[in-house]
């Protein structure tokens, strides 16, 4: 046993340990070649750096924001951007910069938790549907039913039922994006189930659950990671739309969507309220999409040439 493990390990090329300048040392034969491809893509690197800044902004919001985002100062209403109010102030005299900084928290929280939620639910449903033909029809018809609605409509309907709260937005959007993941995992499961290694695993008496985990799920990982990145982007966008419509997070919590919506009636006098929050939202979603594209190109050998 120990011998086979060493031999299997010998063929692998170790990942780079000493920073990016060793990137060229990862050869195409390495299982980590995709990391090199990914980090050689300038759009991906810029996006990763930008998202890191947004993440720090969200984590350190109380330190970065000059004032409490809900602090109302009637004396400072609709101040244009200046050295005191970097992004200006809104119609209640609240500091727009502080609100944008705190808004990053909701967007990232929703984006990441919805991705995890949809991946867990979708993977389970997809694995079961793909592995057990008897469960397939029922599960996939339910997924069809959920997919027959445009995502924002399904999210709105669920929010109408649950009422406005951050955790309800997360539940609603996880349900909305589950069919997408389930369909993907079902597809890869159906494909892998036919492979001889699954047959041999079954022949040596491995349990279904272990086969699904070790041979089927592990082989679905790369498309799943790519799709997961896009789910983060969609979830951030849909959360912002829900908040914009007033059907998402409760109004007292600043989110990018609700800041843009609050600024719309004041567009004539105070463009800065909507524009800064919207720009951050746009840049975050764009960066996430670019990373998704980069991951797809790096992980899928077929798309590399393009």
């Amino acid at each position: 046993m120990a011998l086979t493990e060493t031999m299997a390990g010998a063929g692998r090329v170790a990942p780079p340990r000493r920073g990016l300048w060793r990137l060229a040392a990862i050869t195409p034969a390495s299982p980590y070649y995709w990391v090199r491809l990914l980090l050689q893509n300038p759009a991906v690197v810029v996006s990763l750096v930008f998202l890191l800044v947004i993440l720090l902004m969200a984590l350190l919001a109380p330190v970065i924001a000059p004032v409490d985002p809900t602090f109302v100062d009637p004396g400072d209403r609709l101040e244009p951007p200046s050295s005191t109010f970097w992004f200006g102030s809104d119609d209640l005299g609240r500091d727009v910069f502080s609100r944008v900084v705190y808004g990053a928290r909701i967007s990232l929280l929703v984006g990441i938790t919805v991705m995890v939620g949809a991946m867990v639910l979708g993977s389970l449903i997809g694995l079961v549907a793909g592995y057990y033909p008897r469960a397939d029809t029922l599960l996939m018809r339910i997924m069809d039913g959920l997919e027959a609605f445009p995502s924002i409509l399904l999210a709105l309907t669920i929010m109408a039922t649950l009422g406005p709260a951050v955790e309800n937005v997360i539940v609603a959007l996880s349900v909305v994006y589950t069919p997408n993941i389930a369909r993907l995992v079902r597809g890869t499961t159906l494909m892998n189930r036919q492979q001889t290694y699954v047959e041999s695993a079954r022949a040596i008496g491995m349990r279904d659950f272990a086969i699904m985990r070790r041979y089927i799920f592990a082989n679905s990982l790369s498309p799943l990671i790519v799709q997961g990145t896009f789910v983060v982007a969609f979830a951030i966008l849909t959360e912002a739309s829900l908040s914009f419509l007033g059907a998402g997070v409760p109004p007292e919590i600043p989110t990018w969507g609700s800041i843009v919506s609050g600024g719309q009636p004041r567009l004539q006098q105070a463009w800065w309220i909507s524009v800064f929050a919207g720009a951050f939202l746009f840049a975050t979603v764009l960066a996430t999409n670019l990373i998704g594209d980069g991951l797809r190109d790096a992980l899928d050998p077929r798309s590399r040439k393009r």
Partner: protein
Amino acid sequence: MIAYIVRRLLLLIPVLLIVGVVVFTLMHLTPGDPASVMLGREATPEQKDALRERLGLNEPIPVQFVNWFGSALRLDFGDSLFIGKPVTQALLDRAEPTGLLALYSITLAVLIAIPAGVIAAVRANSPLDRLLMVVSISGVAIPSFFFGILLILLFAVVLGWLPSGGYVDIGDDPVEHFRYMLLPTLTLGFSAAGLLARLVRSAMLDVLNEDYVRTAYSKGLVERHVVIGHAFRNAMIPVLTVIGISLAGMLGGAVVIETVFNIPGLGRLLVQSVTRRDIPVVQGAVMTVAAIEVLVMLLIDVLYVFVDPRIRYGAD
């Protein structure tokens, strides 16, 4: 062909049944008594009883579902709790602005996306391709409400050329109608065009690598002929599917755009009904949109036959 369409129409029933179960279940998961939730705290017990009776809430849940779904199939979703008319009538009253907005936007999206995607594929990896793809990924990533607000800021607030919101009926004044619809159409059309252009490009790239395209070039056909006559037609199948999905997605997009531009359409009605918990309207609107989406997808499948004569339905 006809047999195929009939079979597909019959298959719609189980899909709609599932959609119905989803909508019905969601609306009945509302914590607490729906009658108290809808009427608010001040309602008297008599009022609540009357509403419960009117909505059939005293029946067992499965009976309620069968009653509701049976009427829904006959396009009867009950009465709105706020507007004071049948849901179907309320939906019909609001259908025109949404329908026209979706129609204008999908037309614009197709007119932008198909040339952009084809050019990007033919000149793959050129600076022009890169530029087109950056613009199209921005179309996918920009929140439609934010893009709409930027357009309002530029064309209504700064330049003062176009109205910032509202709606004029096409029958009342066609010129004003288009002036009001221009910005919403640009907003919704641009985001759909982004996705579509990326798909047209990748579908075209697949086809351009085929042997018959090389044959066409090698027998001396000019590029225009090869691209339009040989490649484009074969790339149309996945493109048609996405046009169908985009058209259905427009109905979702309209929810946001109609709120930004204050257009009295189905989307605004739905958002208003969600906030005031007008459950029959929400159920009716969502069921209608889902049914339209499913019908559009069927229409697209039928259109395949005209695009690609190799596809024959019902011959199995």
